[in-house]
């Protein structure tokens, strides 16, 4: 079976993962901009990060026959810092024309603060200004329902948004309905401890169908694996 992993943070994975993904049928992946696990001290480093996502990482993937695409943003984990957000948002347009850039993401909210929502809205405006696709992160665990509702309501209130150009990721049983009902794409994340197990993902596909629904790993530096092991 050939597959595309629509959410993989490969900067935190080894070349062994690339090799295993290729051997198990992965032909392409998309890598959203991520939180490094710590807050950055300066917005300048984001130029390096975006450069890595648009040059070095696609080269690394290509060695294993995998096409690498990416999304650019300031990740919601740092969205509270409005000054940092302004600088990073200013940086992004110069990278949007690079051949592997799909759009703006993964944007959204983390703890659902006022500043995070403001930063999210700024990213949405940027995406609309440059006619970009949008990839959205929804919060973790107890914040999932609240964050997803705030995100979906914010998008629905914006008449310039075309739901078919937006993917609201990390859906679970209590949020998948509100995302699909509004016409957005959604994603199920095989990250068993904090998101969804493969078995629960199958249940949701059975219940909601496969239309506008993707499954991905969101593999990163946490206890997550690219789908080559999860799918088996």
């Amino acid at each position: 079976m050939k597959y595309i992993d629509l959410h993989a943070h490969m900067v935190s994975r080894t070349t062994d993962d690339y090799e295993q993904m290729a051997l198990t049928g992965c032909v392409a992946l998309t890598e959203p901009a991520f939180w490094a696990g710590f807050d950055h001290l300066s917005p300048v480093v984001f130029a390096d990060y975006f450069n890595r996502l648009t040059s070095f990482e696609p080269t690394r993937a290509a060695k294993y026959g995998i096409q690498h695409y990416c999304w650019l943003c300031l990740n919601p984990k740092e969205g509270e810092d409005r000054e940092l957000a302004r600088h990073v948002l200013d940086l992004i347009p110069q990278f949007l024309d690079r051949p592997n850039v799909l759009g703006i993401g993964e944007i959204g909210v983390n703890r659902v603060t006022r500043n995070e929502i403001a930063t999210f809205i700024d990213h949405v405006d940027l995406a609309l200004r440059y006619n970009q696709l949008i990839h959205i992160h929804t919060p973790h665990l107890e914040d999932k329902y609240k964050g997803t509702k705030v995100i979906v309501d914010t998008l629905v209130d914006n008449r310039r948004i075309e739901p078919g150009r937006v993917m609201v990721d990390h859906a679970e049983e209590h949020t998948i309905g509100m995302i699909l009902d509004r016409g957005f794409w959604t994603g199920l994340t095989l990250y068993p401890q904090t998101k969804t197990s493969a078995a629960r993902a199958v249940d949701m596909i059975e219940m909601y169908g496969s239309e506008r629904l993707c499954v991905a790993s969101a593999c990163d530096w946490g206890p997550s694996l690219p789908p080559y092991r999860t799918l088996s």
Partner: protein
Amino acid sequence: MNRQDGTCPLTQQQLIDEYFMEVRAKMLDVAAFLDRMDRSVDRNAEDDFRMLTMRQALQVLCAHTPGRVYDIQMIFSDPTTEPLVQLDRKSALGAFDHHRGEVQP
């Protein structure tokens, strides 16, 4: 009729034959965790909000109505929509404290 009735392509007998052992093991893990809590050297968190939500969730497991996963997800969730005034912490804890609500800094 529930709109999701019949969406699972396996029969109940097939589901039991295929998944009973796996789910049985998970149930024993939950039981062992609760026993371990009781055996703790210092029973200093009997009313921890996470354990309160877990006890609520266990009651839902015994329900005879569908939608158990949704109901349990909502027990663990913050059901409000009011944004926090500012960031209090980076990480989620796994359960919302329904009695205390969110502490605004």
